[in-house]
C-alpha cells in the first residue's frame, strides 16, 4: 500500500432490501404497468438490482385521473396546517431511513456514498422540512386571501440526483396544495419507490403522490396529457425545448431546469488552495453529472501554470472506484449511454486540438467509469467549451482582465451557474453583477439549500426551485398576465 492508499471501507448493503420487481405507484398502491418490464442495474457493477414496470399511456392516464380525484376530493379541501404535518412526517421518515436511502441511492446511481450520505439525503429531508412550513402560510407567501394550487402537476426528473430532484419537485408542489404524478429517470427509479413506501408510512392520502416509471415515451405521455395543469421538468435542454414546443398554445404552466456550462472564474489573488478544492468540487462532484457544474475553468493568465500544477497534483489524489466505499471520491458514470456521450465529447476536444490530461487512476473492469480529465489550450469555439459534457471533464480557458472573464463566462446560450474566486469583495460583487447566471457561488461552489432559489437564465430554462420563488411556481398567479412560461 502506498502513502495515499486506504484500506477498503465499504458500506454494508444489508440495510437495503429491494423487491424483485416494482409496479407503478398509483392511488396509494403498487400495481403493474401495462408497458412491459425493464431491469435496473448498478452502474458500478452492472448487476441487476430490481425490475420496474414501464407505464403505458393508459397507465399515465389512470395515474392522472387518480391524482385529479385526490386533488378534488381530499388535498385541495384539506387545511394547509394538515398538509403541513404530512410533509413534516415525510421529512422525519426520510431522516430516520437516511442510511438506507443513501446506500440504495449509491447502489442505483453509482455516486459515492459520502455524497449520498452527506449531501443528497440530508438535502431531501431539508427540502421537505422547509416546504412543510410553507403549506400553512400560503396567504402570506402570495399576499392573497385565496391562494390557488394549479391542480395536478406532472413532473419529470433526471438521473443525476434521483431522490433529491424528487424532493425539489414534490415538496413545494404538495405544500402549495397540488397533487403530483412524477416520472423518475429510467436508470434511477429505486429511491422513488422507497419514497412511495415513505408516503404510505406517512399516511399521505391515496392519489396525492403518484409515481410512474418508464423512459422517454412515458415522460412524453405525462407532460403532453391534457389533464395536467402544470409541468415541471429537470433535464436536458433539447428535451426542455421539446416540452416547451409541445405545450405552446396550451394553458398548461411550465417550469424548466435545463443544462448549463458553468464558468468558474479564478482571479490571480484567489486563495489558491481553496480555489483548487472549489474547482474540484465544481466539476468532479457527482462525477460531473451536475447541470450547474463548473465545467469551464477561466483562469487569470498569470496564475494559469501555477494553478494547473496544483490542480492536477490534487486531482491525482482523488480515489475512483467502488461508490459504496466511504473513501471513494469519484464513483461510476450512471449508464453506458452517458459514458459514450462523455467519450465522444472528450474525443472531440482531442480532435479539435486541445491538450488532454487524465488522472492515471485504475478503472474497475466492470461497470461504467471515466477518469478525471482536464483540457488545457481550450478556445471558446471548441465543442468542449460550448457543449454540456455532463461528466468529469474540465475545460480550462484563460483571461487577462475582468471584462474578458465576464465576456467569456457569458459566451454560451446557457445561464445556470458561475463561480468567482477572489479575495477582493468589491471586484467579486462587480463581476457577479455582470454574469448572466441564475446562481453564482463566490469562493465556494455547488452549494444547495432549500431556502436558496436555484434556476437558470436563457437556455438553462425558466422558473426557480427552492425558496419562495420555488413555492410560488406551484401556485396560480393572481392578477398576473396570461401564460405561465416564466
Amino acid at each position, binding site marked *: 500500500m502506498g502513502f495515499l492508499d486506504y484500506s477498503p471501507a465499504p458500506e454494508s448493503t444489508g440495510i437495503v432490501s429491494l423487491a424483485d420487481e416494482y409496479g407503478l405507484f398509483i392511488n396509494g398502491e403498487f400495481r403493474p404497468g401495462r408497458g412491459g418490464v425493464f431491469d435496473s442495474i448498478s452502474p458500478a457493477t452492472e448487476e441487476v438490482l430490481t425490475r420496474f414496470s414501464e407505464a403505458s399511456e393508459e397507465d399515465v392516464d389512470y395515474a392522472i385521473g387518480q391524482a385529479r380525484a385526490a386533488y378534488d376530493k381530499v388535498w385541495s379541501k384539506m387545511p394547509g396546517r394538515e398538509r403541513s404535518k404530512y410533509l413534516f412526517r415525510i421529512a422525519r421518515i426520510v431522516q430516520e431511513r437516511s442510511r438506507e436511502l443513501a446506500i440504495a441511492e449509491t447502489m442505483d446511481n453509482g455516486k459515492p456514498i459520502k455524497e449520498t450520505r452527506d449531501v443528497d439525503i440530508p438535502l431531501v429531508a431539508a427540502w421537505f422540512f422547509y416546504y412543510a412550513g410553507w403549506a400553512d402560510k400560503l396567504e402570506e407567501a402570495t399576499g392573497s386571501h385565496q391562494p390557488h394550487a394549479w391542480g395536478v402537476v406532472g413532473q419529470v426528473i433526471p438521473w443525476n440526483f434521483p431522490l433529491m430532484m424528487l424532493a425539489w419537485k414534490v415538496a413545494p408542489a404538495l405544500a402549495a396544495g397540488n397533487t403530483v404524478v412524477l416520472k423518475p429517470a429510467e436508470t434511477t427509479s429505486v429511491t422513488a419507490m422507497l419514497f412511495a413506501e415513505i408516503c404510505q408510512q406517512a399516511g399521505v392520502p391515496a392519489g396525492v403522490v403518484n409515481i410512474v416509471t418508464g423512459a422517454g415515451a412515458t415522460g412524453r405521455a405525462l407532460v403532453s396529457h391534457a389533464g395536467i395543469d402544470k409541468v415541471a421538468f429537470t433535464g436536458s435542454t433539447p428535451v426542455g425545448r421539446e416540452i*416547451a414546443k409541445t405545450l405552446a*398554445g396550451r394553458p398548461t404552466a411550465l417550469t424548466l431546469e435545463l443544462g448549463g456550462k458553468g464558468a468558474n472564474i479564478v482571479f490571480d489573488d484567489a486563495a489558491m488552495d481553496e480555489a483548487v478544492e472549489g474547482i474540484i468540487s465544481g466539476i468532479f462532484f457527482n462525477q460531473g453529472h451536475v447541470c450547474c457544474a463548473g465545467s469551464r475553468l477561466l483562469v487569470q493568465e498569470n496564475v494559469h501554470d501555477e494553478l494547473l500544477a496544483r490542480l492536477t497534483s490534487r486531482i491525482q489524489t482523488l480515489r475512483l472506484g467502488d461508490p459504496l466505499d466511504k473513501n471513494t471520491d469519484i464513483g461510476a458514470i450512471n449508464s453506458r449511454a452517458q459514458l459514450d456521450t462523455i467519450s465522444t465529447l472528450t474525443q472531440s476536444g482531442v480532435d479539435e486540438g486541445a491538450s488532454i490530461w487524465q488522472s492515471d487512476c485504475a478503472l474497475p473492469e466492470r461497470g461504467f467509469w471515466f477518469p478525471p480529465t482536464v483540457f488545457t489550450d481550450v478556445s471558446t469555439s471548441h465543442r468542449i467549451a460550448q457543449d454540456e459534457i455532463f461528466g468529469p471533464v474540465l475545460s480550462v480557458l484563460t483571461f487577462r482582465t475582468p471584462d474578458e472573464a465576464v465576456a467569456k463566462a457569458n459566451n454560451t446560450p446557457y445561464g445556470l451557474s458561475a463561480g468567482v474566486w477572489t479575495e477582493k469583495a468589491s471586484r467579486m460583487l462587480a463581476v457577479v453583477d455582470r454574469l448572466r447566471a441564475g446562481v453564482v457561488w*463566490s469562493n465556494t461552489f455547488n*452549494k444547495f439549500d432549500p431556502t436558496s432559489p436555484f434556476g437558470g437564465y436563457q437556455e438553462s430554462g425558466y422558473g426557480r426551485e427552492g*425558496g419562495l*420563488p420555488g413555492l410560488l411556481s406551484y401556485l396560480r398567479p393572481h392578477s398576473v398576465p396570461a401564460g405561465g412560461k416564466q
Partner: protein
Amino acid sequence: MTRLDVKKTYKLYIGGAFPRSESGYTLQVTTTKGEHLANVAQASRKDARDAVSAARGAQSGWAGATSYNRGQVLYRIAEMLEGRREEFIDGIRHCEGVNQRQAAQQVDQAIDSWVWYAGWADKYAQLVGSANPVAGPYFNLSVPEPTGVVAAFAPAEQKNASLLGLVRTIAPIIVSGNTVVIWAHPSQPIPAMTFAEVLHTSDAPGGVVNILTGLRDSAAPWLATHADVGAMDLMGATELDWASLEAEASATLKRVLTPVKSVPEESLARITAFTEVKTVWHTKAMG
C-alpha cells in the same frame, strides 16, 4: 380661403431615430368610419432585425443605470406625456372614434400608469429579492435582474387601448432594465408613434424602446426565433397565430406571455414576468 393643414408622415422608431421602413411599403390607417387618417410604415423583417440590434446594444447600459436613474427617466417620460396630453386626446378620438371625455380619460390613465411603474424602479427588487437563511456559513442573497431584450405586441383591438395598452405593456418591461421592441397594433398605430416622439424628447437612451408599425404577421415569427430576444409579450397578439409564435419561441426557450383580450392590468407581476432571479452565495469566515 381655408388653410390646408400639414399632414404628418409617420416613420418607425428604432435606436432613438425615426427611419422609414427599408421595405418602402406603407399601410393606410383610417378612422373607425373608414376615412383616411395617415399612412404608417410597414416594418419589414429587416426593420425588426435593426430594432433588435438597437435594443440589444442599449440593454446593458440601461440595466447598468442605477434604479434611481431609471426611475427618473421614466418619470421624465410621464412629464412629456402630460405635456402632449391634448395631442394624444385628438389622436385617440380620431383613430378610436371615441368622444373627448373617453379619450381624455384614457390619456390620464396612461399617464398615471406610467408614473405608477416609474416608482417601481427602485422598489421592486426589495419586494421580490430575498436574503436566504441557508444552513451554513454563507451570505446568500437573491436579486431580480432584467431578462434582456423583450419583443412585445401592443394590444389595441378594443376601445380605450391604443395608448393605455401600449404604455402598460412598455413600462413594466423597461422599468427593470430590459429594452423592448414593440409592434404597435396595426389598426391604431398613431398614438404609438406620437408616444415615440414623447420618448425621443425625453431622457430615455436610444434603443431602450423601439416601436414598429404595420402588419405584424410576416415578421412576428422571425422575432420569435431571434436568439437575441429573451422574452416575448404576446399580450396583444390576438390577431396573430400566437400558438405558433409560442412554439417558435421554444427553440431558444424564451419566456412567453400569452394573449388576453383586455388592456393589461397594472401589476408588480408584469414587472417580474420579465426578470430573472440571480442567487449569490459567498463564504463567511472570521479568519
